[in-house]
Structure formats: C-alpha cells, structure tokens
C-alpha cells in the first residue's frame, strides 16, 4: 500500500512538474493568442486545461472579450465619452472651410 501511495505521489509530482501552474496557464493562453506555442508548452497547457475548469473559463472569457471588441468596433467606440464638443466641431468646420477657400 505504501508503495502505491508513493507511486501516486511521484506521478502527481511529475504531472505537476510537466504542467504549468494556473498562473502560468493564464499567461500561456494569452500568449497563444499572439503566436503558436512551442509543442512542449502547448501539450502541458492542454493537459492543464483538461483538469482545471477555472483556467478553461478564463481562456474562454478573454477570447470572448477579444471577439467582442474586434467584431463590434462601432458599439465599442460609440460608447466612449466624451464625444466631439460643439466648440471643437466648430473649429474643425472652420478650418475645412478655410482650406476649401
């Protein structure tokens, strides 16, 4: 029995050594949006994600936000404040008029 426990501990330790931590996994998921991860990293991350629902959730969420911002630039931009002030609007109109002069 003791041997089995030892084996289990050794296996767990080995797995944890091969896999990234959650903090690492978050960083790797972000990096994966920039460039393909090297194979060993990618494999370790994949394994971690099979086992860790919080990191899976995180990845889904940052990809959702990226998709939202990228595919809805109008809504995103429009929601910004402040907009063009009346004074600034007037300044621009005048400069355009002057250039068309």
């Amino acid at each position, binding site marked *: 029995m003791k041997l089995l426990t030892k084996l289990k501990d050794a296996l767990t330790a080995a797995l944890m050594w091969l896999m990234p*931590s959650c903090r690492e996994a978050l960083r790797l998921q972000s990096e994966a949006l920039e460039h393909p991860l090297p194979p060993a990293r990618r494999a370790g991350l994949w394994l971690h994600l099979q086992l860790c629902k919080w990191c899976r*959730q995180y990845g889904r969420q940052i990809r959702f*936000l990226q998709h939202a911002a990228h595919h809805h630039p109008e809504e995103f931009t*429009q*929601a910004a404040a402040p*907009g063009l002030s009346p004074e600034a609007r007037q300044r621009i109109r005048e400069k355009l008029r002057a250039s*068309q002069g």
Partner: protein
Amino acid sequence: MTPVPDGIDLPRGSRTLLDCISDLTHHTFCVQTEGELPSNQPPPTNGAAPGLSDPKQWVEEHGDYLFKYALLRLRDPAKAEDAVQETFLAALKGGRGFAGRSAEKSWLVGILKNKIFDYFRKASRETSFTDLEFYADEESERFVPDGLAKDAWIHELGPGEWSHPGASLDSEVFWKTFQDCSGKLPKNVAAVFHLREVDGVDSREICALLNLSESNLWVMLHRARMALRRCLEINWFEKQGEERAPKKSLKMV
C-alpha cells in the same frame, strides 16, 4: 467583416463583392451592399453623384465617431482633434465619392488610422511605450501562495462562469461598462489593447509601431486582458439577475 449567414436573401439588384471585383476592371466605384441602396438606384460615378454625402456634412455625420476613435487611442483630446481635422483635410484632397454612409465612414476611419499610426511611430522614438508596472502582481492574492499547489487558483476565487455572454453584446450598458473598464488602463497599455484587440493589428506590427519588444508586448497584453476580464466580471457578469446599472465608480481589482 463578419460573413453573411446562409439563408439571407439579398434584395434584388444588390451588388455583391463579386460584382464589385468585376467592376474594378471597368473603373466604376464599388459600393458595399449595406441595404442602403434601393434596388433601382444606378451605380455611382465619379464626382458628386446624387445621394452622396456632401463633404460639408462630414463633420456632422462622422466627426463624433472619428473623434472618439482617435481619443481612445491617443488619450489626448487636443491630439485627437488634430488627427480628425487632418483626416478631413486629407479626405477633401482625395476627392472620392461614396454612396452609403457606411462605406464613407470606413474610408475616413482608414485615413484616421494611418494618421494615428504615424503619430505612434513618431512618439515611440521620443518616449517609451513600455509599461511593465500596470497590474504587475497579476492578481497574486487569488492564487495559492506556496506549497505543492503554489500558483494554482484559490478555488472560490477562480473565474466564475459567465452565462450567455453573447447576449451582453446587445446591451448598450455592457458596451459602456466595457468602455469604462478600458478607460482605466493606463495610456500605453490602452494603446496596445486598442491596436491588438479592437483593430486586430498584428503583434509584430505593433512592436514596430510602438518600439516594443515582443516579450514586453505579450506581458502588457496579458495584464490588460486579465484586468479587463476581472473588471467586467465584477461590474457586469456578476450582476446577472440583479439590475445591471453602471456604477459611478468602477472597481478595478
């Protein structure tokens, strides 16, 4: 551009992208099918055709949007105003006509985008765009500090599930919240975020534009994404079921 889903019937006489491509050989203007052209309208020709937006109207029609676009990236109202003005001036010189507000807006945004890129190229030679301080602890208090499970999520503090996130995209308050969260990013991180996540500019191009190393860029992006995710989680997604009202002061953990 999101593709048109299957099963959508285009109105009769609409021009598709293929029509536009074949027309390029005949030097006629290409108009995007946006549902704005009635089917009996002839294709636009050079110069000011009927139904085209008058340059005198540009400031009214597009000024506000262009200003916001510039302000989000430049973070300086005076610089944003300059950029918008230069955009309109350049557009006047360009002298092209467009039918459809959408196509015209895209064109103007394109000119503005280039002006902004020019600004970044120049500014990055004078000051550094690197910011390794923002969110440097990366929410360390939410991870196990030591032991066998070091750097694992403390379970109760891990990301919660966001139910029906897609539905949020229809909410004006959601976009306002997203905007407010991104407004909390410091200037250089915000520039990186807008270029990469909103504009989809390639990492390497951002590095060239802002004079950043790739590894610094990735760190800045990681922290921006982390911060934004957390901000939206607190200020939007955790409020499902309650009444979602924009908070006066946002918590940005």
